[in-house]
């Protein structure tokens, strides 16, 4: 579903944020992307979702090149950033309606999905209020509902659990499993190693823009905890 091949991204100042990154996320995968602050996680994600261009390599979403056909790729994926800066001058429902319009979701389908997801995240009653009145967690919930509105084949999340209350975090985890069971794939970055270990069937660890370990979670951890492995590889490699 997502294939990142030899991705290299150099910022204009000369900093190499991602160097020869290779990641392969298949349908049904929940793929965790782990690394220190500034390791290159967000840069890699931003290259995938179309915020950054990149210098070398290729990115394919469902075998479609992000470089050649960005719109087709965007139509089948969804992205939630670490800090959901949404349109604060819109109400929650106006925002969701806007996103549904952009993805071409029919009126009936959007109604059903918004009802289902907003009830699950317990935010239906606040959808008529301006987003500027929302807390960080509420914005995060609306961003998640917006991302799920067109049933994406690939869901990309940057630190999705930051700001979510425990119940919403559990709901999101269930949604992630639900999506994967339906054949979608999830690629997300996180600092919370416990979550990654329990949730992900695959992980990749990035340091200084380079992937230093990747594969099935069980293979990467090899009986240790992900935290121990992470500390070991990031300090010794």
């Amino acid at each position, binding site marked *: 579903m997502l294939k990142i091949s030899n991705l290299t991204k150099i910022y204009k100042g000369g900093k190499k944020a991602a160097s020869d990154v290779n990641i392969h996320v298949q349908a049904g995968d929940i793929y965790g992307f782990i690394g220190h602050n500034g390791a290159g996680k967000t840069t890699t994600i931003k290259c995938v979702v179309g915020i950054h261009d990149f210098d070398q390599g290729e990115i394919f979403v469902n075998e479609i090149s992000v470089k050649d056909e960005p719109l*087709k790729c965007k139509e089948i994926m969804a992205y939630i950033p670490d800090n959901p800066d949404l*349109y604060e001058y819109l109400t929650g429902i106006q925002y969701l309606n806007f996103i549904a319009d952009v993805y071409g979701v029919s*009126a009936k389908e959007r109604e059903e999905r918004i009802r289902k997801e907003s009830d699950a995240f317990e935010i239906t009653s606040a959808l008529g209020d301006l987003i500027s009145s929302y807390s960080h967690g509420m914005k995060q919930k609306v961003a998640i509902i917006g991302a799920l509105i067109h049933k994406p084949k690939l869901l990309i999340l940057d630190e999705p659990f930051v700001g979510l209350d425990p119940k919403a975090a559990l709901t999101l985890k269930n949604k992630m499993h639900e999506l994967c069971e339906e054949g979608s794939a999830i690629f997300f970055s996180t600092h919370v190693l416990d979550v990654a270990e329990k949730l992900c069937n695959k992980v990749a660890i990035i340091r200084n823009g380079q992937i230093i370990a990747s594969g099935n979670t069980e293979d990467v951890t090899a009986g240790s905890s992900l935290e121990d492995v992470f500390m070991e590889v990031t300090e010794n490699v």
Partner: protein
Amino acid sequence: MFKQIFRLCRLQMYNIFGINEFRHTKDKSKRKRFELMAALWSVVILMVVSYVVGLSYGLIKLGMGNVLPMYLYAVVSIIMLVFTFFKSGSVLFSMKGYEMLVTLPMPKSAIVVSRFMKMYMTNLLLACVVMIPGGLVYGIMENPSAIFYIIYAIGTVFLPLLPLTIASIIGAIIKAISSRTRRKSMVEALLTILLLVAIFGIFMSLPDDEKSISLEMLKNMAGIIEEKLGMFYPPALWFNNAVFGGFSYIIGYIGIPLVIFVLFVAVLQKYFQSICTLLNGVSARNDYRLTTLKSQGVVKALWKKELKRYFASSIYVTNTIVGYVLAVVAAVGVFILGIDKIGELLGISGIEPIVEMALPFIYSLLMSIATTTSCSISMEGKNFWMVQTLPIRSKDVYLSKILANITVAAPFYIVSVIMGWLTVKPDMMEYLWLAVIPACYIVYMAVMGITINIAFPSFNWDNEVQAVKQSASTLVNIIVGIVSSIVPVVVMVLLGESMSDIARLVIVSVLVTVTAFLYNKNGKKELQGIG
């Protein structure tokens, strides 16, 4: 407290004109943009300096050297007042950094003063650009004593204090009123525009008995200027009296503004937090029930979003709608006065055909001063990631912004054109040009605004004022708008009345061609490559 004010001011200075970002950025294209911005500002400053030098020379040659300092002082003060009350409220009560600052151990007056000083520093630059060349011309031609220069320099340093304080008081009152309403931005924009129209109304209604200038009047002009400016803006007269030896007047033009400023800070610091809290507070009902939803096309959805964004920001509205409001004011003014009276007022007979010919271009000029598109990409700010990551064609994003600009301009355009039709002589061709030329300019400038903003985007702003008023994009847009609407008028005047229809047809054709070219060119620019 002074130490705290100094620290906060230094913090504000880092952000002025993006100097700090320029010093530390490693991004070459960003550095180039800063350099271009600096070059543009240098050209503007050079133009102002040249104008002031010429004006000062002319006034001194006409024997009015003794009123030159007060004339410059008053003009700069009025410009500062008008241009600052648009933004003073937003700068003083900016929520950016407010929460961080109020939790630090510093008095609220320090926050107020530091925010005021940010406006003061930029306005001091304007004061220097006008007052220094004027003073030097006077010094070279009239050879005054050293004390003139000292008093003149002190006066220049204190010049921004009073207009900025008055503008801040107005801005604070508008913010205080609007903060108590549900639709804060709309109320604020409406109050600001009403105030602007009122100021223009006052200027226009000032009694003016003189129809034309005679030689006798010219001899007494210095006295007339002194009397009228002294009545209109007394600090200018006090400044004039002080530089020419009336040292006691220093108390007037320094002491009084200082006292007003201190009183303003003392009062505002009491209400500062409550106004900020009210402005920051958003009412939430939390009682929404999901009803039937409707689907619509992508461009329509983007266009509606764009209009919501526009009307949610008072700074955005007041600064970009002003040209359209002025076009209506001009159209109504010309209708009331009549074209023949314009010639009389200007003291030039037989000018009516030229005024009639220039009327569509006057509307166009006013409607080209500010466009909503010139900062519409910058106004995406931290939300820009959304249009970048959603499956939207960049072409549709630009189109929605152009359509929003046209939507905002449309009511003002319609009123101006109807007033124009009622003013000019009944002639189908004149009616046609009055409708077509401003329409072409609105679309041309909307597309041009996008083109300019693509070239000079600014997403990293703390306050909307920076994107709307202080960005390179806005400055370039103003220059292009003025040049684009003045050059055709000059060409038409040179060609004469007999060629006017052909000339206007050529101008419209050029506008349409350039607009189509830019629109197509912009459409190829991916959102990913902006910034």
